């Protein structure tokens, strides 16, 4: 059938499709749609940098403008992935340099980025605009200097929680006077002091600056001047929020804040002196996002602040808020959608604050829009979880971390199976779940039966047998990422659900009961799964085949299963069909 629809029209129609899923669907309709779509795709998201190779991406999508990519598995955040495992950005950067001269955006998460890569980025793309490095590492402030100096149209430089080797603050001074395009600057993870004059001048000549996140080294006394130069700010991260109590510093700051009519998000607040918090009160009614998770503020001062923020939608806070503070939150902030409570003293044996499961119950009762929670606490009960589930069936993300990983219901001493079971049963839209506490195979049965929209599951120190893992793999239809540590799950469940693994992005299992033999078998039978055995004890075949591997990382891939950058503690399937180490 002759297809008389002109390509340009189709392209125009496709340009309204921004979601990757839609574009992927469109490209499967027919060959000509596939071809048209691939030439007009401008943005790409690669969830696992090893699932595909740069060559394949470049071959299929010749005209990309924005690349977003993730590297190490999530558990790398907690030091479970040894250094040197991989996720190097350089091969991608180098390949893209030739292929995409008009590239504008690079966003990387959990990847190793070198100064060399940064320099290459800064010199290769004439219209480079956006660089976001989340939880990345491997570069120094010298690399940042290259970006600052050479990217003439830079709009965003965001270094969220990256580990940067901080040689000096001099990098900031490399922004030329002609650079006026900045919209977003996040340097909160850096340690050293930048030149305050250079910073002030940069802010003053950036009329489009919407987001400014300073680092701890910017003292409170400097904050007022900076904010004054950018009254259009929408998101502000302060530096250290402490100074001698002086009325002129205070009033200066309060005046500066009151000029910021568009401020919606606040963060920073290292080393807080609570007496300076009221300087912000004038902006509180407009604030929708508040990140106080680095701020040691006593509960009473927190309550005073929060009760001013009636439009709050997102709150990240330390457990200094205590149950009483969460009660106040539940009473004042009816628009709250996301709550994260972090522990102030996670390694202490005894609780240092009065924060219990009750706080979470209150918030779930009082905040009808609450859909996302990350909560660290020291005790939990099935009754509380059941109440929370009943109160708040609209949860999308529910992550609970009890400091003692195998803590039972503290009232009945039973496992917390029933509680988490209630969560998955009532919260039908649940997409992400992390569990802790004493948990048996039963909770996994509930999860397999109910959590049909669950995409990411994190499990630690839970379960009794392979049955648990089997329930999850066979029941969770939408599962994309599964990460497991220290659970008695092993070969049987893994091999019985081998096909399921190819429908997921990845599976991480560390300190479980997965044997090397099973890994070999899985890799042999599933040619499109890369089964990485990550073991620092030396070659796996120097131990009995039934011996458990330290870590197994299994992910689907269309790239080679013998990635060239494997360190000596990673083993994968050798395509000669005998598993050798690299």
């Amino acid at each position, binding site marked *: 059938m002759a297809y008389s629809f002109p390509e340009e029209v189709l392209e125009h129609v496709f340009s309204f499709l921004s979601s990757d899923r839609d574009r992927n669907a469109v490209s499967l309709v027919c060959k000509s749609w596939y071809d048209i779509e691939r030439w007009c795709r401008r943005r790409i998201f690669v969830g696992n940098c090893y699932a595909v190779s740069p060559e394949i991406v470049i071959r299929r999508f010749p005209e990309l403008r924005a690349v977003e990519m993730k590297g190490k598995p999530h558990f790398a955040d907690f030091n*479970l992935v040894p250094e040197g495992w991989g996720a190097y950005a350089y091969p991608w950067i180098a390949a893209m340099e030739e292929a995409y001269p008009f590239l504008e955006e690079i966003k990387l998460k959990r990847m190793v980025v070198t100064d060399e890569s940064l320099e290459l980025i800064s010199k290769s793309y004439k219209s480079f605009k956006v660089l976001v490095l989340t939880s990345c590492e491997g570069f120094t402030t010298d690399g940042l200097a290259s970006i600052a100096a050479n990217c003439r149209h830079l709009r965003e430089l965001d270094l969220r929680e990256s580990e940067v080797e901080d040689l000096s603050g001099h990098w900031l001074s490399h922004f030329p006077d002609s650079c006026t395009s900045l919209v977003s600057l996040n340097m909160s993870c850096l340690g050293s002091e930048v030149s305050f004059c250079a910073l002030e001048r940069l802010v003053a000549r950036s009329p489009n600056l919407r987001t400014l996140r300073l680092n701890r080294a910017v003292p409170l006394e400097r904050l007022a001047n900076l904010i004054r130069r950018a009254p259009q700010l929408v998101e502000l991260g302060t530096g250290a929020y402490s100074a001698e109590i002086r009325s002129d510093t205070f009033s200066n700051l309060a005046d500066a804040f009151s000029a910021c009519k568009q401020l919606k998000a606040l963060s920073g607040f290292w080393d807080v002196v609570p007496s300076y918090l009221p300087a912000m009160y004038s902006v509180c009614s407009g604030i929708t996002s508040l990140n106080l998770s680095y701020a040691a503020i006593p509960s009473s001062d927190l309550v005073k602040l929060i009760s001013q923020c009636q439009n709050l939608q997102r709150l990240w806070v330390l457990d200094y808020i205590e149950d009483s503070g969460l009660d106040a939150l539940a009473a004042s902030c009816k628009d709250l959608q996301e709550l994260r409570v972090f522990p102030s003293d996670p390694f202490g044996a005894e609780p240092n604050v009065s924060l219990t499961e009750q706080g979470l119950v209150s918030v779930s009762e009082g905040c009808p829009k609450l859909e996302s929670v990350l909560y660290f606490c020291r005790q939990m009960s099935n009754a509380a979880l059941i109440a929370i589930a009943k109160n708040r069936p609209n949860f999308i993300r529910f992550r609970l971390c009890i400091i003692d990983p195998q803590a039972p219901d503290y009232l009945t001493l039973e496992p917390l199976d029933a509680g988490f079971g209630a969560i998955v049963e009532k919260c039908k839209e649940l997409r992400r779940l992390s569990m802790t506490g004493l948990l048996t*195979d039963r909770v996994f049965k509930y999860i397999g039966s109910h959590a049909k929209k669950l995409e990411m599951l994190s499990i630690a120190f839970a379960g*009794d047998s392979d049955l648990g893992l089997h329930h999850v793999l066979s029941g969770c239809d939408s599962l994309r990422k599964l990460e497991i540590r220290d659970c008695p799950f092993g070969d049987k469940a893994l091999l019985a659900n081998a096909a399921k693994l190819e429908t997921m992005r990845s599976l991480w299992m560390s300190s479980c009961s997965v044997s090397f033999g099973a890994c070999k078998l899985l890799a042999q039978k599933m040619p499109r799964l890369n089964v990485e055995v990550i073991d620092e004890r030396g070659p796996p075949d120097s131990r009995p085949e039934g011996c458990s591997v330290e870590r197994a990382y299994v992910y689907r891939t269309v790239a080679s299963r013998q990635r060239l950058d494997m360190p000596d503690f990673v083993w994968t399937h050798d395509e000669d069909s005998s598993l050798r180490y690299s």
Partner: protein
Amino acid sequence: MSIPQEHDYIGLSEPLQSEKLSYKMAAAAEGVTPSLNAEKVGVFNLKETELRLGLPGSEAPERKGGIGIGVSLFGKELKDESMCVKNFVSGAKRGFSDAINGAGKWGLSIHGGSAADLGGNGGPNLKEEIPAVKAVEERKNEASITAPASKAQVVGWPPIRSFRKNTLATNTPKKDDVAGKSGSGCLYVKVSMDGAPYLRKINLKTYCSYAEISSALENMFSCFTIGQCGQGLAAKEHLSESHLMDLLHGSEYVLTYEDKDGDWMLVGDVPWEMFTDSCRRLRIMKGSDAIGLAPRTMQKSKSQN
């Protein structure tokens, strides 16, 4: 997956041994198709999974019963698929307690071993049936985490990012009752070695002395040294702080660290606690590069070479 759940949470509040919980499919299939029993032992046959591969997200028509991918084990055996679906449904209608008291076998066995491996026929502790190696590992696992009050630090627990952990360590809370507490129980520093392709991270708080840290580093980096680290170590009876350099004796490397002020110092000169407080990062340097650091100590180690 559409197996209706019969249970409610009230019923479940009775203490149940999870190992008695049968996998419903197995129970159902058993009751319906006797021939399945014989095949159960070999039911875990990877050939089955091989044939099941499709595009991610695709569903083979026979799976319309909505059981899910994992059930392909049983799905393959049953010839009549509509019967399959019906029987699973009827099987699932068995009461929850029936399933518990029933056969309690989960017929998956990779090496053709007894189907009771996973089932636990009323065995009190499922873990006893797992091969010895695994049981030992699990008990070791448990031991290390059932003592939170002891110094045993589990890697990566609680799950808090390094950035946050390091910030907590240097946070000065204004509350009086927490003023006395020290910071985190965890201090990760990077260890690099000249000439090694990648670096390592270690938690300084897990070591109590220079001897411990040097032997740990030795193990970690021994694959990179061409030299005779091990021989030097074997020759020593005990290691004292001042003999740290001797550990790497014969391999031309010295251990150095960067302190809070950004200066590079030789490891071993200051008391251990002072070292852990001020150390930001470690570097195993070639002896020739370390000359500028502490001439007197360098000469001492050179004379011993």
